[in-house]
């Protein structure tokens, strides 16, 4: 599903990603953990080219993301993204937020689009809020709407960039629950997170990144219970 080979990213002289290679298979749920500044968010953002890649190859499905001629808009329609800061469109209602992309990209009929949007809202438990503006929602609710919005284009892959880091503690659970449900539906997910409990419970594979490298990866049990690398051990001893 996703193939990454020799991915490098520099911001000026600052090398954020040094040499990343990994393969993510269809329906796999991958959690990326690591200290801040380790490059995990940048890695995620390289997958849908929100960051320009300095060197290396990223393929999603049959599409080589990093090839110069790739229609990046088309690719992004297959790759949903959820941000730390939600980034809902404040001038549109909840329903309009979800319907925007299908309306203007797929030219979906209004009735069909609305039906799908309501179904998605129902899935994240917010059907009652369909006509509210984002500013009237709590952080957890906004993030659940953002997930519904990303799902509206029926993406094959969902990227989550620290989706619960900006939330008050009591709202983290509701967002993680929605993500768990998604994982069980079998959508391919790449999740950058500090929620170790979520990673342990839901991930098929955990990747530990530090200093722009993948230091260690494996099943949640392998990483959390028997980390091999000393940097993984040091990190986990601080967060667990």
């Amino acid at each position, binding site marked *: 599903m996703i193939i990454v080979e020799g991915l490098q990213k520099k911001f000026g002289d600052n090398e954020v990603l040094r040499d990343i290679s990994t393969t993510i298979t269809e329906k796999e749920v991958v959690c990326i953990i690591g200290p801040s500044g380790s490059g995990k968010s940048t890695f995620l953002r390289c997958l849908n080219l929100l960051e320009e890649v300095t060197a290396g190859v990223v393929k999603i499905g049959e599409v080589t993301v990093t090839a110069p001629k790739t229609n990046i808009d088309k690719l992004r329609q297959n790759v949903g993204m959820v941000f730390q800061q939600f980034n809902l469109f404040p*001038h549109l209602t909840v329903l309009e937020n979800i319907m925007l*992309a299908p309306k203007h990209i797929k030219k979906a009929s209004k009735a069909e689009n609305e039906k799908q949007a309501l179904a998605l809202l129902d899935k994240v438990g917010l059907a009652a809020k369909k006509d509210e503006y984002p*500013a*009237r929602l709590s952080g957890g609710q906004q993030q659940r709407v953002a997930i519904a919005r990303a799902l509206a284009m029926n993406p094959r892959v969902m990227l989550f960039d620290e989706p619960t880091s900006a939330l008050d503690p009591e709202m983290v659970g509701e967002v993680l629950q929605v993500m768990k449900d998604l994982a069980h539906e079998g959508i391919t997910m790449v999740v950058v997170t500090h929620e170790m409990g979520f990673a342990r419970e839901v991930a098929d594979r955990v990747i530990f990144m530090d200093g722009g490298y993948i230091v260690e990866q494996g099943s949640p049990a392998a990483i959390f219970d028997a980390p091999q690398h000393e940097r993984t051990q040091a990190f986990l001893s601080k967060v667990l």
Partner: protein
Amino acid sequence: MMSSWQVIVDAMPLLLQGLWITVKIVVISLLIAFAIGLITGLMNTSSNKILKFIATLYIDIIRGTPLLVQVFFIYFALPAFLDIRIPAETAGIIAISANAGAYIAEIFRAGISSIDKGQREAARSLGLSQVQTMRLVILPQAFRRMIPAFVNQCTISIKDTSLLSVIGIKELTQSGEIIISTNYRAFEIWGTVGVLYFIIIYGISRLSRVLERRLSLK
């Protein structure tokens, strides 16, 4: 000697005619200026260096020279140089549009860059193109923030049209001068001219406050 009221009443038809020309020039000029400002503002925020250079050059030239010089240049210098004739009113509209356009471009640039970059990223990550992102996500939010600055520019442009009296356009100020040259009643006429400008500008300020409240994000 005629009473002040009588002077004002007698002058009113001519002054209102002047006011009409002022309003006409302002409305046409601001519509053009809005288009110029939008295009130049977008050029200025684009990553294309040539577009950006052209936009910056235009804005710097307009901001760096007095409007009066711009009016003279367009009305006297350009026609002489290009060997064409430009009617005074057209020249006036060109000058006001070009002038306001540069300032509105800066308002657009500031409005666009005030929108959090996460908005752009969210829109692009959904697969919306750059143009769609600008049109559907960035500009609708930027417009709301621009209203006060845009209204401010409107009021400035209205007052700027009084400079067009120097090229003989019979707008409000010029009408006042014409009337005074026949009746020598400076106090009544300039007073009335001032009040007429004030009514228009104050009305627009009030209207904008209503608009702002209507459009404010709930």
